[in-house]
Every structure is written in structure tokens, then in C-alpha cells.
């Protein structure tokens, strides 16, 4: 991946220095890969985000996973045991969320700006409808962020973006082994004087590939056949084992 990155950076520099026609673009960014392939041996991966800016400003990168409706539950003690007592429906929490910036977010832009673009965990708009007499949506929100951070799906802090000669920037986006599949959005903002000057959004697809993907699709699309094959495989394996060990 590294030699490829060097080539990409060189190409970028060449393009940027080619002439004034291109220099008008204040922000250019791309990913080292637009596909995170979950193969059988997948243990997580890093995707490199790189680009260049023209002029002064801070770069902020937000990676958002697909939104999936989810139900959260809260345990409470009842009759000596802990059981699920309250629940909340969350419809728009991104499955994955990470922010990287050249400087701390509060120095880059005002809360209003960050709020408008939903930059930073505290500015993430979450629609939480709690069906719980003893816990309010704010508690569910805190719990959701905590759980997602523990799973490595939400960043604990704003990651640093490295700058080279005030023009080139790069940062690694880490995707852990349990990363949910779907279409992700990588948003790159150029912020100067507290205002978003330029922004660019690049899609990134996280997808299962190979045998695992085929099995998953088969299990969901041809569930009956999958079930029968699973039973047949198990029965055959059991029979084989009995025969093999009888002779031994």
C-alpha cells in the first residue's frame, strides 16, 4: 500500500503544480481505496485519506457509516434480577463515525458551524424516542456513544491530520474487524475563519467479498436451501466422524 500511496501523492503534486487551471480548486482529496473488502481473514484495515488545499485553513474529515434503525434497552433490577425494563428507538445513528482535524475542533469553527455539519460526537444529531419512565433520551444518547466507542465504531477523540508544507494533508481512517457493511460517506471540509470554504464528499463502500459474502447472500436469499444444506453437512460430518473413529 505504501508505494501506491507515494505514487498517488506524486500524481497529486504533479496535477496541482501543472498549471493555474487546476489551482483554482481550494480542496482536493481522495482515498487510497474506495472499497473496504471484508474477506474471510478480515481483521480490520486502514484507509488512507489524502489531499491538498490551496490557501490557508483547517482540514476536517468526517467519516459516517450508514444509518440503521436500532432498539436500545436499559436494564433495571426487578425482584432481585436485572432485566430489560426500558427501551428507546434510535433511527438515525450512523453505524460508524470518526472525525479527524488539523486542530482541535473548538479552535477551528464555532459550535453553530460544527452543529450545522454535525462535526464531532457532541454535535451529532440523534433522534432518540425513549419508552422509559426512568431514563430520558439524554441518558440513552450518552449510553449509545459509550457503547459504540467501546466497539471501536465511534472515535474516542478527534484524530490528528498531518500537514505537509501547509498544502498536503493525510490521515489514516481505521476500520475495525466488526465494521458494519454499507455505503460510507467521507466528508472533507476546508474551514477558514470559522467558515466552511470548501467541502467534498467521497463515498466508500464496506462490503463482504468472497466466500463469506456468498454464504451471507445465500443464507438470506435462499434460506430454505441454506438450512437444508447446513443440516446435510452436519449429518454427513457426524456420520464421517463415527465411521472414521470406529476403524481407528
Amino acid at each position, binding site marked *: 500500500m505504501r508505494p501506491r500511496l507515494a505514487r498517488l501523492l506524486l500524481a497529486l503534486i504533479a496535477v496541482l503544480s501543472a498549471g493555474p487551471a487546476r489551482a483554482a480548486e481550494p480542496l482536493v482529496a481522495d482515498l487510497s481505496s474506495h472499497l473496504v473488502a*471484508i*474477506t*474471510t*481473514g*478480515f*481483521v*480490520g484495515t486502514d484507509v488512507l485519506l489524502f489531499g491538498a488545499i490551496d490557501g490557508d485553513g483547517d482540514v476536517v474529515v468526517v467519516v459516517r457509516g450508514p444509518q*440503521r*434503525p*436500532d*432498539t*436500545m*434497552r*436499559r*436494564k*433495571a433490577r426487578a425482584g*432481585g*434480577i*436485572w*432485566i*430489560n425494563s426500558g*427501551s428507546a428507538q*434510535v433511527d438515525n445513528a450512523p453505524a460508524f463515525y470518526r472525525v479527524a482535524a488539523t486542530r482541535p475542533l473548538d479552535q477551528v469553527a464555532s459550535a453553530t458551524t460544527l452543529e450545522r455539519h454535525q462535526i464531532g460526537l457532541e454535535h451529532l444529531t440523534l433522534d432518540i424516542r425513549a419508552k422509559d419512565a426512568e431514563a430520558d433520551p439524554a441518558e*440513552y444518547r450518552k*449510553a*449509545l456513544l*459509550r*457503547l*459504540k466507542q467501546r466497539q471501536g465504531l465511534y472515535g474516542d477523540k478527534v484524530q490528528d491530520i498531518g500537514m505537509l508544507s501547509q498544502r498536503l494533508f493525510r490521515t489514516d481512517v481505521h476500520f475495525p*474487524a*466488526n465494521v*458494519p457493511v454499507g455505503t460510507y460517506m467521507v466528508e472533507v471540509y476546508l474551514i477558514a475563519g470559522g467558515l466552511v470554504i470548501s467541502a467534498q464528499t467521497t463515498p466508500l463502500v464496506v462490503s*463482504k467479498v468472497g*466466500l*463469506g*459474502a456468498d*454464504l*451471507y447472500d445465500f*443464507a*438470506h436469499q435462499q*434460506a*430454505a436451501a*441454506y*438450512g*437444508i*444444506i*447446513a*443440516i446435510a*453437512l*452436519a*449429518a454427513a*460430518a*457426524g*456420520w464421517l*466422524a*463415527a*465411521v472414521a*473413529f*470406529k476403524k*481407528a
Partner: protein
Amino acid sequence: MQIYLPIAEMSVNVFLILGLGGGVGFMSGLFGVGGGFLMTPLLIFLGIPPAVAVGTEANQIVASSVSGVLAHWRRGNVDIKMGLMLTSGGFVGSTLGVFLFRWLRGLGQIDLVISLCYIVFLGVVGSLMLVESIQALRTSRKQAAGGPVVKRKLHQHTWIHGLPFKMRFRRSKLYISALLPMGIGLLVGILAAIMGVGGGFIMVPAMIYLLGMPTAVVVGTSLFQIIFVTANATFLQSTMNHTVDVVLALLLLLGGVIGAQIGARFGARLKGEQLRSLLAIMVLIVCAKLLFDMVSVPAELFAAGTGGKH
């Protein structure tokens, strides 16, 4: 070496899963039990979603019961007629169980029900087995000392024998109502589907104490019916809940098959009562661990991703 499980949607260490299969297989070979009651909680402790653990374990038990029943079949220790009666009840029961599972999952109470079922059944079966095996150990000591031997009747006559649809079961030397094995099959089928077990640890005592079957045919017949009940559960979990992970199942049974053979060889060296008391203690340990988890203050009160709309 890590492997990505396509249905569980997580990455696990291959050797950990093989070792787990081997360890539980060893126990099942040693004690002559299915091992589902150990495997399902262990998979959940590892972080496998409970629904996937239950569905996949049903699939794995198909393999271990086929493997186990063949030896009993050769010795003629399978009462097919009784097995079919149990299976007919078990089919209905496991179907109901899978529907119940889906309904409870929607309510967010499936984990609670799984844990409660485990605590109640492991607690009862474990205590009974422990008491019985200790008594047996004492009796065998008394016998060695020349004490009197109390002979137990094969079975007593109760209201159970007044039920209609009587049927003759030659291999079990019984003439009882067909409703009885069907009813037992039904109840164990429900539990098997919810708990992700074969249900042998409930079925075997039920066959001995409720039906009065001779011990020789009990294990073979129980395994025989478990094959069909878990096959039904596997099919339904695959089609309704999509929670059977064949990659996980294959890894588990690979380790399990080898472990079971080693365990069986070890088991041949130990006495029946000793084995049963050891098994009882292990069952009670799993039960105590689950009970502790239920009453102690959890580290995290909130949970996400429980039965959301997919």
C-alpha cells in the same frame, strides 16, 4: 489466525473456536451428553450474538447426535417407535420454540428467558444428579461392606397409565399411552429451540423417571430424536431468523468430533457414579455463573443492537 464469521458478522480466532469445540466435545464424550448446554453459554460469553449461538448450536448438535447415535444403533439400543413418538412431539415443540424465540427477541426479553431456562433446568437437573450419584456411591460402598441391597421397582402405576392411545414399545418393554412421549417431546422441543441445546439432559431423566424406560435404550433413543428436533430447529432458525452460521458450526464440530472421541476413551476408565457426580458439579457451576450474572450489578446497564429492525 482470525476468521470472519459471515452470519455472526464478527471475526474470531480459529484456534479458540476449535479449542472450545474440542473442550466441550471432550466433556460430551466423557459424560455422554450433547454438550449444547455448555457450548451455547460459552459462545455467548465469547461475544457471539445469543440468537446466532442458539441457531448455530442446533446445527452442530445434528452432527454430534448423528455421530453418537450410530454406535447405539449398531448395538440395537435405539427404540425407533418410541423415538418417532418423541420426534413427532418434538417437531411441534421446536417449531413453537422458534416462533417463541422470535417473539421474545422482538420484546427484548430473549436473553432473560434463555438465562432463566438455563438456571432453572441446570439447577434442577444438576442437583438431582448430584444427590442421586452421591447416594449411589454410598450404596456401592455399603454393598462392598456387605449391607442390604434395596431393589427398586421398575415403575409404579399412577394416573399416567390411565391415559388413552396405549401403544406397545417392544424395545423399551413398555405399554403406555402415546400421548406421554409426545408430550415430553413437545416440552423438550420448545426448550431445545429456545436454549440452543439438544435437550438430552432433560430428555434422559424424563425417559427414565417419567416413562420408566430401561437405561440401556435411553441414550440411543434420546440421540435419535434429538437429530430430528435439532434438524427442524436448524431449518427454522435458518429460514425465519437467519441465525445459523455454517462456518462457526463446522469449526465447532471439527473440534467437537475429536474431543468427543478422546473424552469417550477417558470416560471408559471412570465409574458411572463418579462420572455423574462430576457432570452434576459442572452443570451446577454453569448454573451458578449464570445466576451470578443475573443478580450482580451489570457493568453496563444499556445495550444497543438488540432486535432492531433490519
